[in-house]
């Protein structure tokens, strides 16, 4: 009993408690006010220890981003959306994406529902017995770019950050997927380095420049090759149609469920690997989200695909 409580309290300290375990811990503490008070003090102490020991870099970067956001009233994503408004109005987000996500992820349960889509959803296609599910993580490149340090290279870092003036670049090798495969759904999964990633305001966009993981910066997509506009904001740098929105997933993870255009793009990458330049994840939320990069021992961004190997009639 004591060990079970200690296990749950330790897991809570790590921010990795699952829903049922949180309820179990609540029940254990409810009958013991003294232990409950000690647990509260432990939690505060843990936050204090983090504030003292983490070096404050994430905090300062986040504060810097919020100060900048406060002074710059024309956010990137909003500007993109204004430019793309006529095209987006015709986009269809299919219900299959949501249904497929739950089928693929198994234990991954979204804690929050995505905001209601303004476009009516199409009916889900009938399930296919030949659908394969794969997660692509091994052959990937990732990097982050930061407006506060526009010439600094972050490609080898263990952390990827998204927020105002920050962007995450990710690219996967999809050569194991047979050309012509019919992609039913695509989901980007990111492991957060902080508990409960709150993710509103972050979206994924197609990258159009052959960025280099080792040398990409806010100013350059590769050494001596500047973006059209710093931060990949130019029309030649990034497509301006969002491919999906970042949502909280289970525990410490967050997910981007690719919309119809995102799924079509993945199919294009499979048919034409030379056009696979990956995605940029960025947003205008006033806080910084931290995720593990591929250098973080197997916790890097993951692309989960559900596809039919040979194209079939839908």
């Amino acid at each position, binding site marked *: 009993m004591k060990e079970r409580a200690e296990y749950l*309290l330790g897991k809570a300290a790590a921010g990795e408690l699952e829903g049922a375990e949180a309820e179990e811990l609540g029940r254990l503490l409810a009958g013991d006010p003294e232990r409950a008070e000690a647990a*509260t003090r432990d939690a505060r102490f843990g*936050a204090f220890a*983090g504030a003292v020991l983490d070096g404050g870099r994430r905090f300062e970067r986040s504060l810097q981003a919020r100060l900048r956001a406060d002074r710059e009233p024309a956010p990137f994503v909003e500007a993109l959306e204004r430019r793309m408004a006529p095209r987006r109005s015709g986009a269809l987000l299919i219900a299959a994406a949501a249904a497929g996500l739950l089928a693929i992820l198994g234990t991954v349960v979204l804690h929050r529902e995505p905001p209601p889509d303004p476009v009516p959803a199409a009916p889900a296609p009938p399930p296919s017995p030949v659908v394969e599910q794969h997660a692509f993580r091994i052959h990937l490149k990732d990097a982050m770019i930061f407006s506060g340090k526009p010439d600094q290279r972050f490609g080898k870092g263990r952390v990827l950050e998204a927020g105002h003036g920050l962007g995450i670049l990710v690219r996967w090798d999809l050569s194991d997927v047979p050309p012509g495969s019919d992609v039913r759904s695509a989901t980007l999964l990111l492991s957060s380095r902080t508990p409960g990633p709150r993710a509103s305001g972050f979206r994924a966009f197609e990258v159009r420049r052959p960025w280099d993981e080792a040398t990409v910066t806010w100013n350059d997509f590769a050494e001596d090759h500047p973006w059209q506009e710093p931060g990949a904001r130019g029309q030649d740098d990034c497509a301006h149609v969002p491919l999906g929105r970042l949502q909280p997933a289970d525990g410490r993870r967050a997910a981007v469920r690719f919309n119809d255009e995102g799924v079509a793009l993945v199919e294009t990458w499979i048919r034409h690997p030379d056009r696979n330049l990956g995605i940029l994840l960025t947003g205008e939320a006033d806080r910084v989200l931290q995720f593990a990069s591929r250098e973080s021992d197997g916790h890097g961004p993951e692309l989960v695909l559900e596809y039919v190997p040979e194209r079939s009639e839908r």
Partner: protein
Amino acid sequence: MMQPLLDRWRRGDSEAFLELVRPHLVSLRAMAAFYGPPPGSLWEADDLAQDALLEAFKAAEEFDPARGDIRSWLGGILRNRLRRAWQEASRERGRQAAEAMRAAERAEPVEDRHVDALRRCMEKLNETGRRVVRAHYGEGLPCAEIAAQVKMSLSALYVMLHRLRRGLRECVEREGLGPEGARP
């Protein structure tokens, strides 16, 4: 030395503001962690500390160095932010407003001796314990990664993490430096 930074801050220069507040960030984050409403995560505490710092940045004209140091002034702004956070929490969770107020009123920037006490207590841990504390609180590594590093099962690591945190807290409190606000 402070006046040029102060002038730049008053002209809206956020870098100058950051330079002025940087020496006090640990103290303010710790204050938010100690005195904020439950659940008391660092993530929530950092949000509150940043809210207060944004408020302070916009209130440049209200800071007068002749009336007190910037740390106390920032502490006052954060105290007000914590009071509001407790009020919001008490509305959401049905807590007593008076209880919330008592907790927020005690809030002060955390002093360096608290930070020193934590470091002293860490030195008393064995090598694995120090490594786990640094990896978790210092580097923010996921537990699965830490468990692999110290060659321990994930379940054992969770238990160890809990015991380490409690042991450190009790050690800091034994030195008479426990946060008063930890008992709202």
